């Protein structure tokens, strides 16, 4: 009888726990080996590598399939060279420009603003200051220099190479150049 009431109590407390229980711990699972992946998942821990990360960078000196090499160096000389000679290898249609606007709004617009005048929401809220207009005469950006800066970042701006792929970077670049010409009007 004591054993039985103990069981009832246990079930009851578990039931209660599921209603108002600890939100900081995950719930128990029925047959956990059906839940857990055997292969390593993208963010799982891993005993093979020293830093225990399953998410790895490409091996040094290799390029993933579908990617290409960017030949300009992350220096002032590389910037000047890209500014002078690098140009867009893709040709975009109207649909791409719409997509480019979307990507621009998500990744660039928060600082550079919808019009590229350097008045994004983070600037308006004075979180990040000194974001220049694309029409800034001192910088005199070209599509080459824009692509270079998206790829490596420059001064306070970080690199966006891991958020946008090559085609997307060029799409955003062409959209930036469109904004620049709109601003210069």
């Amino acid at each position: 009888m004591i054993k039985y009431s103990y069981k009832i109590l246990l079930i009851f407390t578990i039931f209660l726990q599921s209603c108002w229980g600890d939100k900081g711990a995950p719930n128990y699972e029925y047959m956990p080996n059906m839940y857990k992946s055997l292969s390593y998942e993208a963010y799982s821990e891993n005993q093979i590598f020293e830093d225990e990360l399953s998410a790895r960078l490409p091996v040094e000196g290799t390029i993933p399939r579908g990617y290409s090499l960017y030949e300009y160096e992350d220096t002032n000389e590389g910037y000047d060279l890209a500014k002078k000679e690098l140009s867009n290898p893709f040709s975009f249609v109207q649909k791409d420009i719409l997509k480019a606007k979307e990507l621009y709004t998500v990744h660039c617009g928060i600082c550079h603003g919808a019009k590229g005048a350097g008045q994004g929401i983070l600037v308006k809220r004075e979180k990040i200051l000194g974001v220049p207009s694309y029409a800034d005469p001192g910088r005199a950006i070209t599509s080459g220099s824009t692509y270079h800066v998206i790829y490596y970042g420059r001064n306070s701006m970080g690199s966006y190479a891991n958020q946008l792929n090559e085609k997307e970077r060029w799409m955003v670049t062409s959209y930036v150049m469109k904004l620049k010409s709109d601003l210069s009007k």
Partner: protein
Amino acid sequence: MDSKVFSLKITIKLFKKLTKLNSLKSYAFYLIFITSFVSNSYGQEGDPVAGKALFNTNCASCHKLDRKMTGPALRYVEKRLAEDEGLEREWLYKWIRNSSSLIKSGDPYAVKIYEEYNKAAMTAYPQLTNTDIDNILAYTAQDKAVPKPTAVASNLAVGPSNGIGLSDEIILGVFTLLFLLLSIALVVVTKTLKTLAELKGVKPKEKKKTKPIWKAYLENQFLMLCTAILFLLVSAYGFYGWTMQVGVNQGYMPVQPIHYSHKIHSGDNKIDCNYCHSSARVSKHSGIPSLNICMNCHKSIYEYNGETTEEYTKEFYDAEIQKLYKAVGWDDEAQEYTGVTYPVKWVRIHNLPDFAYFNHSQHVNVAGIECQTCHGPVEEMEIMYQHSPLTMGWCINCHRETNVKIKDNEYYDRIHVELSKKYGVEELTAAQMGGLECGKCHY
């Protein structure tokens, strides 16, 4: 103002004299004399208010007044250059308009500062006029504003509320004591009444013995049967409810290694979900951003200046930003990466079992569903939690109810026409497109 102009004139005269002097002693004397006399006059003839606006639009991305950033801290820059390097405002004009040509010309200080700041090239500002630069210098020459004594105010605010808390406890204590006294008094009164009754010879009425209700209940077989059925039904219902929540983590809200507030980032600052979770567009996973994405902004944002509460103070948030710097190996003082990094062990919240396949890009990119449809009002969450149950019934329900967005969606151009013919409908739900087939998610 007159006296300042006067002092400037004297300075110029002294400079002219200085060039003629050779004696080291008098040079030193004059230098001390000049600095003591002139120190107040730097940057005074510009308008600091206009200067602030110019500074914020042009300089602030790389310079702060009191803090090293991509470039050096700029408070008292003119005074510092004049005193330490003997460079005048003309040099600053040249440097700001075109620093690279000044470096190329071999100006020793220009080269030195260029090397010191890792060869970060300062953008040229040919569009700034002398007055503009004067205004900016006037802004940099201002003394640092003394922070308002907010600490005292907050102490005052805490004081009375503490007092209230204390008096609450006192009141509670008094009530408990009163209750105790009353119950003791009751016991004493009944005891005395009983003794009084005994003394007077009054006998308490004897109760008639009847069958206790539980016994009558146990003997009634019909009632017992009903109770048994009711008990079984209730426990079956309870058991069913209990089994249905096994493995469901709705409301799961773990403590994360860094207190990242979605409310501040995507609510207050309106950063799009896709900015950080950029792989949701293109992959199965909506990736947790690597720390370089945090540093896109937090290289510049080193402190929190938004709304605070008693629990989440400015100090609390600032300490969280420091945690990020430690993990990514960013030396905030020197403004450079140390190369020593620690992976942040974020606790995964949304976790589908391995036997169910879910692809983010299919839902975000193809179907164009808002993140909030499944993840709830993330932009209001100070601490992230699981909004939806993520059960199969929940998935299926949405697939049954949601019409597929066909418009401008080339993924569904042909299949939509053929399937609408088959079902004889205008709008197709995800279920009619095959969103209920087992093999879509389980294989």
